[in-house]
């Protein structure tokens, strides 16, 4: 698979991150209709979809180096962003195997995995890593296996243990999240960690989603999309660092909204793990500035209609109250009222 990596851009400070024309065309636009409401929008996660972002099991893109560097910085400042409870050690190795196998298959020019029994050899060329280790022996790696591999992949990951007909979030690498805290939520059940989400409990969304996930089968991963808005292409919008990014929300003006405001989309994947019977939840975050997104006319029209008509409780949950009219006014200029084509892909 083609993978052209840019030199590391920044997702903080001067926010140098931008999307190339190719990155815009592959963006996983999340709205299949002009009106948005919650649903259990899960589908099989197989290679291939509306854009190239769906072509790999774990998608990498031009931002790989910058995102890995941003993750390393978050971890240096706050090591608790990666934590796994000790009983999930099998799930750690499951994750390492799954990610290494997937990357080596989808991106053979960048990654190579050689297995000889328990003697494994991993090569990550973009990060210049060449690691021989013993599968199952954590001491043979420079850090625990889950941390080791998730430092080398774009997107957050959490580990769910399954027991008592429920899922418990008991591990994760969470450095690019949309305002939730792994350290606070660690140990919670499925309904508990979704507690703050408005409207969806009443709609039965979480009951249906949990029932579905408890039956998730080995070798049949599923995916869904989620979205929010973020001011500046900032990966780390954690509650821990809210004092750092919260003030950005007061800086949006009609003049800068196209450049500053980003649609943030999570391509979420759920995979049953073979040894632990746990579930790996991948949360791959994509950021696109509005001025980039409006280059796809269909997306500009549809995003305008979605945000204009969004339920106020949802708009509040997604942090929009301060600048919602500015965004809607900006996008209105790109909406001529023409119908939009079915599906999420660009025309």
């Amino acid at each position, binding site marked *: 698979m083609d993978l052209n990596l840019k030199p590391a851009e920044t997702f903080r400070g001067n926010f140098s991150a931008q999307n190339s024309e190719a990155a815009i065309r592959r963006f996983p636009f999340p709205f299949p209709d002009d009106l948005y409401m919650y649903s259990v929008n899960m589908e099989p996660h197989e290679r291939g979809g509306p854009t190239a972002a769906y072509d790999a099991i774990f998608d990498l893109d031009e931002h790989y180096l910058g995102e890995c560097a941003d993750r390393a910085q978050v971890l240096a400042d706050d090591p608790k962003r990666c934590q796994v409870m000790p009983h999930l050690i099998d799930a750690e190795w499951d994750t390492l195997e799954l990610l290494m196998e997937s990357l080596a298959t989808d991106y053979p020019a960048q990654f190579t995995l050689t297995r000889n029994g328990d003697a494994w050899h991993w090569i990550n060329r973009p990060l210049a890593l060449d690691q021989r280790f013993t599968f199952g022996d954590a001491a043979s790696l420079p850090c625990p296996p889950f941390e080791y591999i998730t430092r080398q992949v774009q997107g957050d990951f959490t580990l769910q243990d399954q027991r008592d007909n429920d899922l418990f979030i008991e591990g994760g690498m969470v450095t690019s999240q949309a305002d939730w805290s792994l350290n606070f939520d660690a140990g919670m059940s499925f309904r*508990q960690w979704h507690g703050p989400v408005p409207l969806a409990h009443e709609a039965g969304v979480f009951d249906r989603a949990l029932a579905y996930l408890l039956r998730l089968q080995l070798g049949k991963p599923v995916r869904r999309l989620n979205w929010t808005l973020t001011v500046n292409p900032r990966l780390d919008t954690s509650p821990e660092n809210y004092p750092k990014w919260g003030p950005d929300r007061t800086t949006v003006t009609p003049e800068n909204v196209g450049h500053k405001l980003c649609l943030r989309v999570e391509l979420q994947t759920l995979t049953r793990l073979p040894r632990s019977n746990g579930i790996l939840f991948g949360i791959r975050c994509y950021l696109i500035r509005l001025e980039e997104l409006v280059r796809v006319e269909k997306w500009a029209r549809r995003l305008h209609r979605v945000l204009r008509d969004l339920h106020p409780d949802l708009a509040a949950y997604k942090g929009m109250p301060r600048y919602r009219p500015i965004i809607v006014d900006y996008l209105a200029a790109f909406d001529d009222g023409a119908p939009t084509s079915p599906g999420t892909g660009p025309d």
Partner: protein
Amino acid sequence: MNKSRPIYAPFQFDPSGARHLLVTDQPDPPADLNTNVQTLTARTHTADAILAFLPPHLATQTTGLRLYAIGSEAFVWDVNAIALAAGMGAGEVHLTRAGPLIRRVYCTHCQTMADDVATTITQCPGCGATLEVRDHFSRHHRAFMGVQVDAEAPGEIPAPEGFRS
């Protein structure tokens, strides 16, 4: 509706137990208590003393014990954590919330815990941030989530209110 918030049953004697221990950070146990129930109350012991007594005591117990905790949310979940660590199962421990509506709050920014918080807006004793107490409860931390309320616009702070539940 918030699904991380526990729902507590009113106190009820559990006849499936062979022995019964009730601990509370309130002055009095429930009225008309079954005489088989041993009690430790705030009239004779501080909450800290009760929490210190439990681990060695539970280590001497065999199955058949029923443990009842009545009091503030922080207290009953502290008791629950001790009971689980002692090997007791979910059906052997009964939690009931009672007393003033106060909360233990975890500061998301500096991870300091503040006990006995009575209002929706409170100052973190660790980092000094003015926190909004979100209605999001962790049984693991035995605390509610506190997040700086005026991070977007410093000084923009809503009036504190008492908790409704």
